């Protein structure tokens, strides 16, 4: 049984620790900013496809940075957490924190891309323009949540290995490819202003790719944590 009170306590504690560490939050956001700025330097007037590809690559690597820290804790902190919550609650709490962090990183990335790169130069048809729309925000956010749900589990796995952070990218990136392809297609259709009827199937795909890693993670996490 999951105790919501324990999950809430864990979340509260997580954010308080983040706040006290003070450089915690800053690290993934700064990473996003640096990669985004690099993109703005190397590409001028990108096409919609290039723009989106750069945005998603920035998001994925920032999310990796952010998730790699999700299960990083000192021995004393682990002792505290393990006494306080059960494995399932721990995974849920960490996954929620990680999802929120990934969303922050994603929206920061989007904002910075808008600031430094602007919107893609030109729409698909002659003279059409590209602007921010609700469908695009939903596509990007769902994609970020799906990425975070896979990364939460691989981060838990990597935290059990010494020097696991370098392994994390190798373990996660192949698993993220389905998510990325669906998210990219959804956000591209949305960016080009296609009607929502074309977006729904991709959103359902994104939601399935959120739910699948979470349910698999819930099934496997107790085995992982026993080690």
């Amino acid at each position, binding site marked *: 049984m999951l105790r919501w009170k324990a999950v809430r306590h864990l979340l509260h504690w997580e954010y308080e620790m983040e706040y006290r560490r003070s450089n915690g939050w800053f690290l993934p956001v700064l990473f996003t900013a640096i990669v985004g700025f690099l993109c703005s330097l190397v590409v001028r007037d990108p096409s919609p496809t290039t723009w989106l590809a750069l945005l998603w690559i920035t998001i994925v690597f920032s999310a990796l940075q952010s998730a790699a820290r999700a299960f990083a804790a000192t021995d004393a902190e682990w002792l505290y957490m393990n006494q306080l919550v059960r494995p399932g609650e721990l995974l849920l709490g960490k996954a929620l924190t990680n999802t929120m962090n990934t969303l922050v990183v994603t929206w920061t990335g989007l904002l910075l891309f808008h600031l430094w790169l602007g919107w893609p130069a030109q729409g698909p048809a002659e003279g059409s323009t590209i602007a921010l729309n609700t469908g695009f925000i939903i596509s990007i956010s769902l994609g970020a949540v799906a990425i975070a749900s*896979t990364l939460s*589990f691989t981060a838990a*796995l990597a935290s*059990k*290995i010494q*020097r696991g952070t370098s*392994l994390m990218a*190798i*373990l996660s*990136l*192949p*698993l993220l*490819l*389905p998510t990325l*392809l*669906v998210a990219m297609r959804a956000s591209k259709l949305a960016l080009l202003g296609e009607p929502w009827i074309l977006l729904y*199937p991709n959103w359902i*795909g994104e939601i399935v*790719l959120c739910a*699948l*890693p979470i349910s*698999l*993670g819930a099934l*496997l996490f107790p*085995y*992982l944590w*026993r*080690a």
Partner: protein
Amino acid sequence: MKNLWKILGAALVGYTLIAGLLFDVPRLVILNETIRNLYFHVPMWFTMIALLAGSLVYSFRLLRSGDQGRLLDLNRDRQAKAFAEVAMIFSLLGLFTGMIWAKATWGAYWTADPKLNGTAVTLLIYAAYFILRGSIDDAEKRARLAAVYNVFAFVLMIVFIGILPRMTDSLHPGNGGNPAFGNYDLDNRMRMVFYPAALGWILIGWWIAQLRVRLENLSAQ
């Protein structure tokens, strides 16, 4: 006669080698004689999936063997590893036979096709599985973490290679309106070779994997 299935596997593969190269096949434009690749390319994937499913089952049984405070059954770990290794060999064989066929019909060894991407992802995922195994020294811990990753990765891989290619257009036979098991290119003569080939290669693959398990068990002693 517990080894009957090994004899059956060898006989079936032997039969399909001869029948696949010599029997009559439908004459189709562009495909021509490359249609025979069906007998050699597609069974590689069936075998890979069968062996990976075997590896998954062993991983799951390894995790279950640790229930109620019992020690992990490390035999299951060796089985899971050996089956994944042999599956990767079949995956490479499937890739190479496919690439030769693609050069003859599509004009290029590699295209950014969903089916081909799926194969590349499968290879990457299991390469990561072997790297994960290699980076943990403690046998018990390695068995547990590798099994967890194996189960997690297998399900996402099936989603990737099984579902996503059907959502998009593909040049690959069997996708996007291209015929594969259609009634005019897989006629009854071809079925008489194709089904035995698939079964035969799965049995041979299973046999190779079991031999690897025995080798691993001996070197572990």
